[in-house]
């Protein structure tokens, strides 16, 4: 039996990952902003077989409540085995170029809140010598592109942060997983055109669950993004800066 904390539990991807834990009969602690949505997700997971599901209403930008959240999770379920960070926002890039407050909001929500949540958890897991931390970053963090660089760079910070954390905690036996999905068909991308490369939340959720079970380090999902991003990262800047990406 595994004790799982999911932050951003009402996101489409998080729900799909959680279904796998539920089917295995695990214990889940779900954190999200909206009480009604959390209740809908919790009910679903209970029917699917989760032995225990608790919810906690939190806006991740209330940094001073992160400690309270962690204590609530551990007092409800006992010591955590898995922490999945799945929250994030992606406003329109054009709007972000005009609105500094919104750009900073992206960093607060996608990056700073994760550092704030994970720092005490990392120390806790390090002391215990066990645990898995999985963080949803993005392929958009592999290289900044004009169409999406505010969101992309907020995720690039997560990629580097989790890379360092993995390096530090590997000695303690703590697994840190950086997850890089390509575009996924979720409410976050509802305004985008659904191309061939758009993956289903179900597929991405399954990949993430497998990565957690197997203790992977860096996971691209679907898998082919590893090769697409490898090409994109290696385009010389002289050429890249003129490209329309």
């Amino acid at each position, binding site marked *: 039996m595994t004790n799982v904390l999911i932050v951003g539990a009402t996101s*489409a991807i998080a729900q799909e990952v959680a279904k796998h834990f539920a089917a295995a009969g695990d214990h889940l602690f779900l954190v999200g902003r909206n009480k*009604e949505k959390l209740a*809908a997700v919790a009910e*679903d997971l209970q*029917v699917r077989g989760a032995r225990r599901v608790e919810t906690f209403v939190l806006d991740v930008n209330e940094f001073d409540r992160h400690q309270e959240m962690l204590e609530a999770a551990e007092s409800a379920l006992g010591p955590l085995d898995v922490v999945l960070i799945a929250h994030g926002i992606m406003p329109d890039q054009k709007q972000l170029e005009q609105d500094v407050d919104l750009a900073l909001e992206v960093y607060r929500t996608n990056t700073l809140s994760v550092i704030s949540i994970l720092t005490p958890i990392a120390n806790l897991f390090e002391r215990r010598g066990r645990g898995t931390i999985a963080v949803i970053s993005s392929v958009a963090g592999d290289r900044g592109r004009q169409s999406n660089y505010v969101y992309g760079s907020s995720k690039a910070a997560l990629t580097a942060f989790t890379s360092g954390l993995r390096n530090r905690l590997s000695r303690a036996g703590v697994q840190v997983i950086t997850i890089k999905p390509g575009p996924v068909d979720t409410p976050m991308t*509802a305004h985008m055109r*659904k191309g061939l490369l*758009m993956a289903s939340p179900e597929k991405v959720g399954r990949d993430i669950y497998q990565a957690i079970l197997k203790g992977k380090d860096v996971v691209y999902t679907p898998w082919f993004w590893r090769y697409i991003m490898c090409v994109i990262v290696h385009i010389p800047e002289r050429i890249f800066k003129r490209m329309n990406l």
Partner: protein
Amino acid sequence: MRTYESWGRFPKVRHRQVIPLYWRTEVPRLDAFERPVLPHGMGRSYGDVCLNDDGILLDTTPLDRFIAFDEEKGILRCEAGVTLDRILDLVVPRGWFLPVTPGTKYITVAGAVANDVHGKNHHHGGTFGRYVTRFELVRSDGSRLICSPEENADLFRATIGGLGLTGVITWVEFRLKPIASAYIEEELIRFENLDEFFEISAESDVDFEYTVAWVDCLAQGDHLGRGIFMRGNHATGYPVLTPGSKRRLGVPVDFPEFVLNSFSMRVFNTLYYHRLREKKARRLVHYEPFFYPLDAIRNWNRIYGKRGMLQFQCAVPYGDHKEVIRAIIERIARSRRASFLAVLKEFGDVPSPGLMSFPRPGVTLTLDFPYDGLPTMHLFDDLHALVREAGGAFYPAKDTHMTPEEFQRSYPRWKEFSRFVDPHFSSSFWRRVTRGGEA
């Protein structure tokens, strides 16, 4: 990624907008839109009941959460977009089954309510709507109504078989059926002609929960209406409760039109008839191939090519039914346009709960035809005339061809029903059979 068309891929229509519904607590105010709206699930109905030309579709498939499952009593509550496939995965291992299932499990539970679907056990169990205990309906004025046989009973009866026109169903609660095995004890019997079909059907009525027959629509003369009768019951002596496999083949491209011609159809029908060597066979089969043989191929509708196909399903009341069914099959045999899926079944007299439910006592015949323009239309005109004269009815979920007169005569409560249609809801089908709501 998703295209919004019906399973027959005919007619082709354009929608102004598709709005996915992600949360049952967050349905937008639907009276704010300038165009009429229509809920759309898996798009497995064949004609235009799931289409809304120049209007707005509400995609209910993201509403795919379970809400509560009483494993003792077998009562399941889930969101509108949960598919029968997901329900089976959940309930079969715990010893429960769908009370009624159509020939595909890739439909949403709200679609099963809206079309009041039926299956091979109609003569015993009636339609899906009979097992619905309650649901929530969101109307365009934002009101949320719990509908059950006791509460908002009028809307309850209008929404079962109501083709999505009475509001958005956000969740459904219904009763399941206990099973001891995921397997079916099946009997296959070859019949030489229609008379023999009716004999076997009558003899199977009491002892077999599931009955259906496949008919070779190209055989003529003495063999007119020959086919294979399939009947079965849930197995009792084989306590295995595994749900179906997830492996499915796909049809990668639309088949070119010449693939399905009268010759290939004749070969298929003849081979299918003779696959049963002896007169009668018994076997133990998993529920998957028994109920859902076509679900093994993900998008089998593509074999009909880009132009799509037309489905035909009628119910002919008892009386001259034998002669009428014979005349219909004769007309099809003459056209040399047979289908893979000619299915014959007798409906029982269990009353359907909805104002607009299709099943009624009599014989139901289902066929599909590749759409090739006028010749198909002429054939349909003739088939419709035969059914009309017999006082029969057509199934909206399969229909592209019903006239307003045919609709209004075979669904005599349609005026009563139309009072419950939400003023901001409509569909291509509804406008067609009511002449744009003016009829």
